[in-house]
């Protein structure tokens, strides 16, 4: 791919982000400005900001990549990401805003009056935030590698530096402008190339076998296998090989591989003839988390799908960077209307990634083998249109992808830094917030260098599972159930969120191997969410004496419309 346009595009996005952020800095004066933009952000600006923040690398690159590799089942991801906002609207949005807290730990403390629960919630915010930041940084690295061939960690480093600079400088106020700007940038960056790609596709005779299984090569294509893998062949395959297959070296030789499993060594070049079905790589042998998740999916597909649905539907409300945004609405009614606008905005955006996924199955099927499926969105303009036009559109997509990393990473850094400043670092204040920002970013940056090769959408899915089993019970029961007690909340978060966290860690480390146990661990939400709710309810019922004294008044504040409250509560 020609990088002479892409690099300026990425640079432009970075510079624009810093400039818009600086614009916010001029009006960001007080601590309240810093954390919640003084609660004056109207529904439309706030909705664009929430959407801009939410549409991460997973949405921009990951979904198309997953759909390309694993087929339409993966479209449950964007559906779940969107429906999560509906569930948030139904049970959380307005009361959360009316609770008047800055962050999730603030909410926990306001509702339960317990510093212990507050610290626990803070720990989960930091954990989920870091789990979610990791794939953003890796996606940035991948994008820059695909565009320029730069080393893997450079993109992540650039994102980290820019994000720390904008967040530390301007706080929430400047971030709001940056995020709103980036939503529209991201939409444009996917929509405009999509229109051109659709035209190119029609000019190509509208081939529609993308929707059938399996994908096939439309023309002769050479595939370089970057990581050694096992090919699973349902039937015999004729392929020209330069490199090592099944332990034997070949040099530009035509081979007829019989059905069965074949080991392809790292660095081998395979040349497929036109019309060949794309073979599937055996997920058990390549490394990385997506492969383990895919195995779980093969073992219990229905269970995995429902696990994914539950995690995304219920996990959205607990994502630290989403929740903090609701505190910036002026009142509860605005918070609700903002959420509806968000649903419309992200729903419109999510119409596009499936398109890229389908076109990817047609025009870049070899990405299934190279393990860089996340790059499909970036490669398509060049592959389908080519020339200067393709380069320009590719540059636009690259800029949008960087906007995705920057915006989500800023929001997460903001949330994690907020918790670190308030609960970990010794004293509060803007100066310590800046220190917290650096800390919030340093850990996932180190992690992204250590744990290479997580496909972004899957890693994000794991963050959703943890959030759904810890914060979802806390928020829903905290808002609607007056008998919740601090021990109950703590126990529920620990068992639900903790077990999901352990399952995620075990999956990442490839501990359980294969079997149904593995599927249970790879998609924990279906058992860990009920476990979290159940523990929270049962322990609360067992400790009725610990119901906080002011519960009735607090719930009244959560639910009463502001027009009644402003005069009531001073």
């Amino acid at each position: 791919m020609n990088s002479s346009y892409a690099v300026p595009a990425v640079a432009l996005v970075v510079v624009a982000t810093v400039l818009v952020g600086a614009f916010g800095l001029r009006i960001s004066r007080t601590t309240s400005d810093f954390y919640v933009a003084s609660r004056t952000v109207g529904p439309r600006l706030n909705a664009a900001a929430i959407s801009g923040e939410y549409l991460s690398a997973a949405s921009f690159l990951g979904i198309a990549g997953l759909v390309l590799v694993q087929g339409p089942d993966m479209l449950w991801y964007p559906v779940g990401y969107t429906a999560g906002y509906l569930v948030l609207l139904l049970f959380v949005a307005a009361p959360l805003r009316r609770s008047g807290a800055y962050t999730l730990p603030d909410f926990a403390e306001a509702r339960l009056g317990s510093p212990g629960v507050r610290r626990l919630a803070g720990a989960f915010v930091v954990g989920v935030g870091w789990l979610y930041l990791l794939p953003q940084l890796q996606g940035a690295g991948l994008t820059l590698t695909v565009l320029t061939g730069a080393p893997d960690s450079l993109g992540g480093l650039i994102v980290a530096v820019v994000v720390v600079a904008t967040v530390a400088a301007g706080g929430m106020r400047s971030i709001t402008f940056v995020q709103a700007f980036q939503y529209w940038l991201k939409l444009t960056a996917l929509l405009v190339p999509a229109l051109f790609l659709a035209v190119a596709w029609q000019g190509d005779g509208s081939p529609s076998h993308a929707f059938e299984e399996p994908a096939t090569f439309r023309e002769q294509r050479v595939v370089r296998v970057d990581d050694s893998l096992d090919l699973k062949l349902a039937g015999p395959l004729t392929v020209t090989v330069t490199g090592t297959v099944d332990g034997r070296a070949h040099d530009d030789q035509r081979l007829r591989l019989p059905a069965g499993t074949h080991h392809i060594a790292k660095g081998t070049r395979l040349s497929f003839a036109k019309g060949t079905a794309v073979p599937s790589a055996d997920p058990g042998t390549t490394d990385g988390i997506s492969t383990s998740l895919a195995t779980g999916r093969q073992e219990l597909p229905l269970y995995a799908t429902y696990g994914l649905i539950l995690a995304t539907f219920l996990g959205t409300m607990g994502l630290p960077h989403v929740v903090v945004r609701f505190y910036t609405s002026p009142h509860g009614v605005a918070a609700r209307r903002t959420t509806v606008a968000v649903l419309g905005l992200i729903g419109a955006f999510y119409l596009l990634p499936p398109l890229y996924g389908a076109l990817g199955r047609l025009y870049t099927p070899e990405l299934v083998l190279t393990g860089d499926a996340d790059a499909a969105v970036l490669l398509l303009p060049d592959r389908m249109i080519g020339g200067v036009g393709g380069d320009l559109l590719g540059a636009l997509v690259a800029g949008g992808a960087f906007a995705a990393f920057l915006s989500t990473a800023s929001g997460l850094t903001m949330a994690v830094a907020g918790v670190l400043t308030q609960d970990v670092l010794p004293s509060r204040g803007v100066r310590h917030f800046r220190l917290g920002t650096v800390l919030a970013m340093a850990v996932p940056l180190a992690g992204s260098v250590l744990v290479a090769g997580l496909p972004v959408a899957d890693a994000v899915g794991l963050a959703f599972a943890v959030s759904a089993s810890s914060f979802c019970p806390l928020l829903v029961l905290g808002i609607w159930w007056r008998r919740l007690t601090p021990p109950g909340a703590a126990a529920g978060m620990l068992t639900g969120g903790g077990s999901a966290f352990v399952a995620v860690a075990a999956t990442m480390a490839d501990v359980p191997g294969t079997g149904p146990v593995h599927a249970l661990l790879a998609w924990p939400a279906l058992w860990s969410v009920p476990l979290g709710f159940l523990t929270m309810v049962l322990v609360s019922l067992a400790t009725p004496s610990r119901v906080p004294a002011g519960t009735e008044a607090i719930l009244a504040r959560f639910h009463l419309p502001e027009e009644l409250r402003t005069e009531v509560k001073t």
Partner: protein
Amino acid sequence: MPHQDPAERRVVVTGPPRRTLPHARLRSRGRYLHASGYYRPRTEIDEQTTLGHTYVRSLMRSQLRAGLAVFAVLGLLIGPLPLLFEAMPDAHRLEWAVLGFCLYAPLVLLALWYVRRAERNERDFVRLVEDR
């Protein structure tokens, strides 16, 4: 506010009226207009009496009911889909069309429906409490 025997008051413990037809409002006005001389729901809530809490609870119940109703519709809409696709393994085009493009509009409509209901609940509640 002097404390009375609650039994003397004419207390109607219900949720806020679901429909605000003109005649319903008139009727509620007639019913609530200082029947016992002191009756003011707003004050009850302000002073966090048991009666005030009862009002808040009724609002919470109606809001929770609205949320659960929409959530149930969402469940019925989404829940059977994986089973459906599992039962029709060859209907790839259908799966692409439904998951890729057809679910977002219903989600937005459900959200709009809920917001209308929730805001109406709150308006009705304010009217009830402000004794208008």
